[in-house]
């Protein structure tokens, strides 16, 4: 648990970046920087956060920050970690350094998953944070393996026959946890305390840790930019986004939702689900609700809560 008055007022992710108003990634990056414990290197996969925070010759980062490519943030982090280890061994480096890799859902669920799996298996000491806005927002809202069922994107449009994305979201944290790592967790920027605590914990564990955090996107999810945090809270309160962690295989529910709101409360605020409210596609909302219920049941069972 972190207390608000304990948080540093220093901003290592500074204002003036070019992320959209209401973008979750900016809030997440800023909160992440508040949880640092020592000098840190940030690796950023290609994506919104990368392009909007470092347009040359400007940078929003007051930590060392590296971008190499889209699919390899975890591999780059592996190399950095290995380098510090080796340089410490030959006494060319004497300080402890934390390493954080950021990737969006495209860079994480899809093109980057091989590099992530490799880095987790090898046990590099770093924290991987996936800010998940549930589509390739940077390239113009294309569907990813993280896009939920029914969402309209530019490559899974709300057609007259196929109403948005037919497939369901991948269980990324389940995949990470299957590597037997120390800590893998989900989070929401609406629950700042939970998130910052998890970032700190992820940095403190010896070995890899992963955080999968919901990231509202006014442009791609098509919601009012003023309600981003409210939407992030609703994602949790509708049980759409269970907040839990897996420590060495042990699941633990961090935010209990005893009286969930129907998922429609979450869906109706977002233009990407607008088509589901047409009479011919209304059953799709039931399908999403069913997925939410089943996923919640599965997670809470794993957490020993059911």
């Amino acid at each position: 648990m972190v207390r608000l008055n304990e948080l540093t007022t220093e901003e290592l992710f500074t204002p003036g970046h070019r992320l959209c108003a209401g973008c979750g990634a900016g809030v997440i990056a800023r909160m992440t920087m508040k949880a640092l414990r020592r000098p840190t290197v940030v690796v950023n996969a290609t994506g919104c956060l990368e392009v909007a925070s470092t347009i040359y010759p400007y940078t929003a980062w007051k930590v060392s920050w590296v971008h190499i490519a889209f699919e390899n943030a975890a591999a780059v982090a592996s190399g950095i970690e290995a380098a510090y280890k080796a340089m410490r061994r030959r006494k060319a480096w004497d300080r402890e350094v934390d390493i954080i890799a950021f990737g969006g859902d495209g860079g994480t669920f899809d093109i980057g998953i091989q590099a992530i799996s490799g880095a987790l298996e090898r046990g590099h000491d770093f924290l991987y944070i996936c800010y998940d806005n549930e589509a390739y927002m940077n390239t113009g809202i294309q569907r990813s393996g993280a896009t939920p069922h029914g969402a309209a994107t530019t490559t899974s449009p709300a057609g007259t026959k196929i109403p948005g994305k037919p497939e369901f979201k991948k269980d990324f944290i389940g995949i990470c946890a299957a590597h037997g790592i120390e800590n893998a967790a989900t989070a929401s920027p609406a629950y700042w305390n939970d998130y910052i605590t998890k970032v700190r914990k992820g940095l403190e564990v010896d070995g890899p840790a992963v955080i999968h955090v919901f990231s509202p996107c006014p442009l791609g999810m098509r919601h009012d930019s003023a309600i981003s945090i409210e939407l992030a809270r609703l994602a949790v309160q509708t049980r759409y986004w269970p907040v839990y962690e897996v420590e060495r295989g042990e699941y633990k529910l961090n935010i209990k939702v005893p009286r969930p709101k129907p998922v429609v409360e979450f869906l109706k605020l977002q233009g990407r689900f607008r088509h589901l409210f047409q009479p011919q596609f209304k059953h799709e909302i039931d399908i999403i609700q069913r997925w939410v219920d089943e996923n919640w049941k599965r997670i809470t069972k794993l957490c020993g809560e059911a």
Partner: protein
Amino acid sequence: MSRILGLTGNGAVAYAVKQCEVDVVAAYPITPQTLIVEEFSEFVHNGEVHTEFVCVESEHSAMSACVGASLTGARVFTATASQGLALMHEILYIASTLRCPIVMGVVNRTLSAPINIHCDHSDMMGSRDCGWIQVYVENAQEAYDWVLQAFRIAESPEVLLPVTVNLDGFILSHSLEGVEVLDDEEVRSFVSTRKPVITIDPNKPITVGPICFTDFYFETKRQHVEAMNQSPKTINEVNGEFAELTGRRYNFIETYMMEDAEAAIICLGSTAGTAKAVAKRMRGRGKKVGVIKPWVYRPFPAEQILKSVENIGSLAVLDRACSVGAPYGPLCSDIAAVLYKENVKLNIFNVIYGLGGRDITPLDIEAIFNEALEVAETGVVKEPLKFVGVR
């Protein structure tokens, strides 16, 4: 004090990397490169090196980890071949433009399809324009020698470019040779430790790899070109120091029996050894032929090549790779461009040979020499592009 060790080409590379006290090796197995990382991992597991060996899950991650490690200030090595180099392709450009002095052994193997594990140069030629310094060697001794020199060249603050040392798959990688090696202490004083100019030291934060649009990208690339153009000075200095240390004098190119040659072959890698043996034999029969072997392919040694062909009447350019649909293979395209640029009228013809590991025999080479002599005499190139050894 030097010693002679029995080493394969791959073993010579692994031994050199060990002596260079590399901080990070990130590599993935691929035939015929694998012996390098196998032998190196024995050094790691026997506690003979301080190196962190990252057994990555792909070549793409190998090069990515190398870039991360290099930006951190570490001395970095990797090795690959063929499909592995192709998979790295995206990151090769990033490594060079971010000015990461990585050294990579490329054990040349053809590219699929059909899948084939044997030698040709289509892997490196496919990534020819990646902005790395590229060296080709003829034997295991040269592989050892160039790896030592590669770290010096790459990490020089005047250069800061990655270097590939190319050795022919199986022909060199798996052949045992007597290799003269230096003492560890001699290597230590020749190569020294890396002294990075700028790193991602979190106590002095910097941003590396930002997005860079129409207003700055072009300048970044222009600087990269300039770094490559300036690198010959350092390569020359390092070659000179190495010669003082070992007596083995490297240069951008090797010329063999070129003094009074009427016709010559130019080729990369191990084929130069065969060509030299054939040239010697033909000289015995009074045929004035010679061989030019570029060690350094990028930066392209235009000046040295031009000088070496000043007095010949014909040049056969051997390419162990083809550029489908182009007038010539890659080496010949470069030669033709250099000759045209300097307004040198020399009759050249291009021989594509040895694709997928097809042997090139002394008889093949002799026939090429004879054709070159005929072209020198008649001034007529009958076949500007020919395939030798193909059915």
